[in-house]
């Protein structure tokens, strides 16, 4: 049975997919994953998940975020207002702009 493995490098960070292990059950998968995926790279925690239990929906079947104009959800929809008066609002704005640029740039 194949188990997908997700590694968290430091406490508080996300678990990121890092590979798999073949193991007959969850306990053995955890034992094996510790060595194969936690031995060399910095590791705080590992998840093991049966490969068949992972459900996926991708951009071919779903229109993530919708296709019609949803600019009302975004800071960029409020261009005439200056966010500089409050640091946290400005930060949120720049994060949203980065995300927007990334999705416009496609897979890069």
């Amino acid at each position, binding site marked *: 049975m194949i188990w997908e493995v997700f590694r968290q490098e430091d406490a508080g960070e996300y678990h990121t997919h890092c590979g798999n292990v*073949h193991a*007959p059950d969850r306990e053995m998968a955890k034992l094996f994953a510790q060595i*194969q995926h936690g031995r*060399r790279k910095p590791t705080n925690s590992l998840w093991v998940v049966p490969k068949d239990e992972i459900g996926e929906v991708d951009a*071919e079947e779903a229109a993530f975020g919708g296709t019609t104009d949803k600019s009302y959800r975004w800071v960029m929809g409020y261009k005439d207002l200056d966010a500089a008066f409050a640091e946290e609002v400005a930060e949120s704005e720049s994060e949203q702009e980065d995300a927007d640029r990334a999705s416009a740039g496609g897979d890069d």
Partner: protein
Amino acid sequence: MDVETVKERAGPREFSPKDDLPEEYRKAATRMIQFHANSEIMGAYLERPFIRQAPSLDRKLAFSAKVQDEIGHGQLLYRAAESLGIKSREEMLDELANGEGKFLNCFHYPMESWAEVPMIAFFVDGAAMRRQATLKRTSWEPYAHAMDKVCFEEGFHVKHGEDVMRELATGSKKEQQMLQDAFEQWWPRIIQFFGPTDDQSTHHDFSADVGLKTMTNDELRNAFLNAYVPKAQKYGLEIPDEPRIRDNGDGTYEVVEDDLDWEEFFTIAKNDAPGSHEQIGKRSRTQEAVEWVRSGLESWEHGEDTTAPQAAD
């Protein structure tokens, strides 16, 4: 996706299991990655005796860790190959044990003395790492991901190999001579690691066109010689007269192909050299010997309690 589209789109990490790729691409990628995975496993057979024979406790630890890493790399690579949907890991491991699986030329030769250790651990691993670094830009994304981790780990292997070589090169006269002898024996095989020059290689064109390979045999060999010839000389090794290698002075080299034994190389490529039979035989015997464990695990996984009393049939 048809082959023409694949060629147009080909680029670093361009394709993933979500793409509907033509069989020709998936088969070519499987062949390449399976070869790579097999080589990780078979290289470990040459090195494993030196875990025991290492002349210090620290070297023993390093050797054990290195052999462990190679098996780990095999694990990652079989996964990258499996994700192409052509063969399962089990099928590929079966092919390796029954002699159908192909692997690097250097791992078809026996390795008997400690002085030979740096030939694999420094030169062959160094050559492999050169190639692997270019494969971080391969078009099959799972393969590129595996290369990220392999290259992360492999740096220690090459340095470990160099450390063993340095110790021999700065050791007694006898050690230096043993090292030189080993070098002369292994050097042509190491040059052949990169395969024949480009005009003789058969699989290259397609693999390059679809972005699986990102450098040609010649380019890789040049890059290797540029970095590793000076290293060999630094440790006092004399480069054998044959094969003749002409330094073009511009970072490229020409290897006189006729100085190399290509008949041996192609016999090895068919798994038909004496060393091939020896190494594959080992793999086959050791895997057969633990077949019972795999089938025991299988029944555990499927919840078959075979120890429970059964009705007579």
